[in-house]
């Protein structure tokens, strides 16, 4: 393992400290309980507060999306491990401007259980909390026999659009409804060319030969559903986009937002090669590309790989997506 760290046990603490030092205009960091990151002007009176969080190692998710028009607080857990209820509760209290708080939770057992407990504690303290579970990953069969689909890169779109709804003054019920609408309209799937190494584990999360690809990975270094031999980029893109298109399903005349997300170790040039093919497939199917987003937003440490996300949009979702946002990782319109 070769990493820019001092001590595996301190990677999250030191990263968060650096984040706070770099962006004091946008966020402040609360360290007791550890690492609640809140929007600099929180709580905003009368505005629904948005809290998200999860294991660290997916940067810029979630801390990078704290600010005007998006999240009010992010709660980073240990590396790839959901936070405990205490900091989630503290974040919820810190961002409650009297209009209630929405928890945006990725569908992993640990995240769901810890956010659920925090929501119960917040309720006991008189704060109204609603929760939205994000589960956009089509690689996982949603059935009685799994923990359900994972929440992956689509989470960023839920946070952006729900954040805009909260910013314009929607009620807690309305913001939660928008968040659920985004979740029900968004689908993702990813692949890995090389695994990542969790600092405390010290060795790669899975073994992958030089000429192999994992299809259908999540964002925690967990292996995918199948492993295949390496193929040209266009063919790999087809393997990701076809299950996504079939799942919703997306059809001719739909308008979509296409997010090509790097997993942390893939250069932007390759992400654009992927985007090129994905856009070509959409055009062949008569699907209109309404918005594009390309970059590494929901990562898995230094994993080499990419995920594709399609969001079916209407005028309301587009307006909210286009609304001003000012965070470390997304900024426009302001």
């Amino acid at each position: 393992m070769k990493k820019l760290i001092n001590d595996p046990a301190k990677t999250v603490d030191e990263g968060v400290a650096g984040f706070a030092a770099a962006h004091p205009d946008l966020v402040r960091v609360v360290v007791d309980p550890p690492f609640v990151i809140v929007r600099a002007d929180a709580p905003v009176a009368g505005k629904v507060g948005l809290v998200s969080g999860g294991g660290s190692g997916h940067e810029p998710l979630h801390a990078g999306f704290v600010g005007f028009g998006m999240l009010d607080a992010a709660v980073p857990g240990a590396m790839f491990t959901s936070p405990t209820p205490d900091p989630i509760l503290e974040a919820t209290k810190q961002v409650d401007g009297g209009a209630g708080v929405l928890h945006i939770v990725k569908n992993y057992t640990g995240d769901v259980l810890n956010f659920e407990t925090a929501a119960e504690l917040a309720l006991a303290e008189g704060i109204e909390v609603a929760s939205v579970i994000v589960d956009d990953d089509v690689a996982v069969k949603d059935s009685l026999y799994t923990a359900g689909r994972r929440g992956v890169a689509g989470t960023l779109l839920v946070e952006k659009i729900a954040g805009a709804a909260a910013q314009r003054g929607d009620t807690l019920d309305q913001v939660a409804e928008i968040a659920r609408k985004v979740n029900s309209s968004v689908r993702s799937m990813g692949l890995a060319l090389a695994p990542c190494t969790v600092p405390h584990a010290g060795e790669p999360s899975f073994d992958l030969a030089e000429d192999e690809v994992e299809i259908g990975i999540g964002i925690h270094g967990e292996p995918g559903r199948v492993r295949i031999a390496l193929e040209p980029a266009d063919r790999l893109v087809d393997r990701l986009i076809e299950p996504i298109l079939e799942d919703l399903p997306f059809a001719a005349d739909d308008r979509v937002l296409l997010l090509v997300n790097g997993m942390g170790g893939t250069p932007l040039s390759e992400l654009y090669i992927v985007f090129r093919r994905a856009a070509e497939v959409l055009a062949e199917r008569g699907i209109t590309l309404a918005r594009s987003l390309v970059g590494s937003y929901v990562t898995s440490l230094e994993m080499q790989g990419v995920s594709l996300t399609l969001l079916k949009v209407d005028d309301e979702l587009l307006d909210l997506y286009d609304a001003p946002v000012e965070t470390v990782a997304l900024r426009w319109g302001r």
Partner: protein
Amino acid sequence: MSGLDGAWTRRWIEAVAAQVAERKAELTALDRAIGDADHGENLDRGFQAVLGKLEALDDAPTPGAVLKLVATTLISTVGGAAGPLYGTAFLKAAMAAGDRPELDAAGLVEVLAAARDGIVARGKAELQDKTMVDAWTPAVDAAAAAGDDVRAALEAAAVAAAAGAVATEPLVAHKGRASYLGERAVGHRDPGAESTSLILRAAADTQ
């Protein structure tokens, strides 16, 4: 000693902390195969925090007081799925123990069953889902069948939990992160079932 008192409970938890620290890498390796490689690390963080809190307990705590301290500490330090699941297990165990000064064999079975029921309620897992329930349930059953001797009940629970953990290897996972792997989880032992086995083995070995 006829039953299990607060001092025994405290020695047991100290033994668990030592075992988790020693086998941290092994638990993480099991989790790396079918999960996200943090189970040993997370449990170790939790039980090290428990050790720090145990020092603040008075000299003669009840079993329930020790178990409750373990519960609240694990919930607020472990995170992931293991934090709420083990936290709930110890919390329900503490509630079942109540303020009894010591537990006899029947009391032990009550406490183990309450822990197991708490895990089932939180995680909504059933037997054969390839989770820690596959170690807890046979342990509860074996302790109940062991008769009036509390030491025999502890030993039976530990043996059954170990066998239950091994028996998760051929299973397809239906809960937790391993469920994403489908058939690819087959052949790997569930890390939560293994840590359950570790906890109950430590209990049987604690004098």
